[in-house]
């Protein structure tokens, strides 16, 4: 009985899933291409011009951001990435209950010998598989970019000091433009914490959409509810980061736990952060690792999904309008 349900869900959503995967993959490839076009020195100059208020919004060390790896990692925080993930999660989550109810297809489905739990969890597992694939698509896109793109790098001619053997660049000389393969500058495997964090955010968004869907009979209302909640949470995060006295507001936003660039920088610069829930960072300060943040996101998402399934199993199914 699981097979036919999975097949039906696949047939209904294959174009959406395919579109999201291609878009995600292409975006990360494009992101690597953009990074390859911009000279590191110029990028550093741009960053230095940023006012302190803007700098306070960036939790990653600027020394990491100016590197190729750092600049590619910022791609995980682009609104486009969150938008693609949100499109998939909200469309699938809202469809689970309110979508089927508003279309009127729930009746014939649940008149079959399928338990409500199964009718809920099979498409949900499919949606979770989609979230996983989207997170992997971000890595695949990055890998494709790193493997196929060459970066423009400018090198100043250097002179080697005799006896000491050290090379010193000549700043007044004309820089030498060189094409360097991105795989020599960036290791694509460094981005996995970003993909995992993106997956965890996807699970949370899916849980939120599912919870709204389980209560409602109108899909548009469920979508509206999730969209407004996510927008409010992103505003809350920005406010909490911008103004220290209301920093506690950050606890109210799931986006506070979505810091892929930070986690990529942590694991790149501090191997102790890779497989631990906490580590000692700069100045021996106890710091939560990406696993802690991801567990929080996953816990919220799974909790919401569990709650939605309980609501769905017990609720009356209204007659289609």
């Amino acid at each position, binding site marked *: 009985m699981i097979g036919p349900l999975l097949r039906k869900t696949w047939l209904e959503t294959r174009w959406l899933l395919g579109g999201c995967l291609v878009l995600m993959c292409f975006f990360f490839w494009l992101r690597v291409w953009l990074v390859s076009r911009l000279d590191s020195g110029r990028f550093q100059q741009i960053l230095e011009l940023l006012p302190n208020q803007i700098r306070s919004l960036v939790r990653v060390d600027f020394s990491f951001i100016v590197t190729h790896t750092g600049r590619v990692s910022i791609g995980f925080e682009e609104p486009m990435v969150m938008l693609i993930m949100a499109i998939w999660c909200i469309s699938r989550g809202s469809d689970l209950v309110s979508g089927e109810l508003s279309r009127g297809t729930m*009746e*014939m489905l649940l008149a079959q*010998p399928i338990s409500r739990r199964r009718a809920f969890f099979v498409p949900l597992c499919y949606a979770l598989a989609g979230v996983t694939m989207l997170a992997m698509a971000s890595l695949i896109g990055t890998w494709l970019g790193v493997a196929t793109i060459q970066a423009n790098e400018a090198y100043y001619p250097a002179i080697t000091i005799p006896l000491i053997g050290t090379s010193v660049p000549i700043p007044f000389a004309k820089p030498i433009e060189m094409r360097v393969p991105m795989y020599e500058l960036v290791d694509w495997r460094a981005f996995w914490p970003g993909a995992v964090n993106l997956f965890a955010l996807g699970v949370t968004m899916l849980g939120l959409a599912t919870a709204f869907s389980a209560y409602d009979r109108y899909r548009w209302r469920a979508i509206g509810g999730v969209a407004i909640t996510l927008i409010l949470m992103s505003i809350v995060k920005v406010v909490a980061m911008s103004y220290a006295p209301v920093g506690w507001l950050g606890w109210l936003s799931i986006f506070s736990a979505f810091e892929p660039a930070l986690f990529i920088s942590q694991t790149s610069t501090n191997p102790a952060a890779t497989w631990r829930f906490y580590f000692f960072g700069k100045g021996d300060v106890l710091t939560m690792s990406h696993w802690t943040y991801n567990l929080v996101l996953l816990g919220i998402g799974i909790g919401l999904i569990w709650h939605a399934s309980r609501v769905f199993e017990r609720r009356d*199914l209204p007659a*289609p309008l």
Partner: protein
Amino acid sequence: MVGQSEVVIDVEPLIRVEGLGKSYGDFRALDHCSLQIHAGEIFGLLGPNGAGKTTLMRCLLGFVRPTSGQATIGGFDCWAQRTEAHAQLSYMPAQPQLPRLLRARDVLRFFAEVRPPQPPRGPSQKNQPPRLDSATKGGLTNASVRFERACQLADRLQLDLNRWVALMSTGMRQKLAIAATLCAETPLVFLDEPTANLDPDVRSQLLQELETLRANGTTVVFSSHVLSEIEQVCDRVAVLAKGKLVGISEMRQLQQGSVITGRLPAGTIWEPIGESMEWTAPDRFKWQSYRPLEDVLPGLLSLGVRDLKIETLGLLDVYHRHLAYHAGGEASDRSLHGKDDGT
């Protein structure tokens, strides 16, 4: 009402409804409804809009939780054991909606494959012989055989299986839903206004399919506003009004029912037992009888009846009389009512 010549059925009913009620806030959609439907019956549900027909069906299908009472299908509780109950039945809603992004063939395949090989037998069916399914092979109902049967049915209904559901008209979707519903060959079929959007040819085809279901011993619960269809296919009919079950009638009795009017000599004392008799004038009577005319007429003639007029009693008359009785209007024929338990 159970006729004198009728053999009393001593088996557990397939559907048992006891004091079923459903309220939405202060609104009572279904009010203490009790009935029993036996295997092999084609049972009609009649009533004006908002009478509670759909709510009753939705309670039986486990879509809504009853606020009072209980309903069982094959011994399985319709709410607590709805998955087991669903294995016994197939259902077509009044306006069937099917996955729009699938082709008709994929829809039929889904409905053919989603059922378990053989429905579990309910507590009330343990002593009954297993129902023979034409798609049963070696004790298991084969999904591919079921799919093949659905395709054949769709072919008979002149349906293009390669068409996307989204591009189908309402009538075509209805036909597809019929094929998807009937391919399961379950012991029980719920049809909620199945002919609403069908052209006359397909409508008569569907009624023929119902006759086939009857021949196979399938129980059908059939809701429709078209009284002629109910009259044509149903064995019994229940009338609902304002959430209450106001009457259950046997179609066979209705078909031999008649309204007899006439005049009797003054002073004649005559009161037929258990049937509706009304004196419209001291010597003029109006009698609604469900006995065969050959049993009734000799007695009447022996009493010296004059100006005799006999009209056949149709389902519409019964329907109106039930509703009028419930509304507290003119006196209704109490003999039409079954026992409280609906047998």
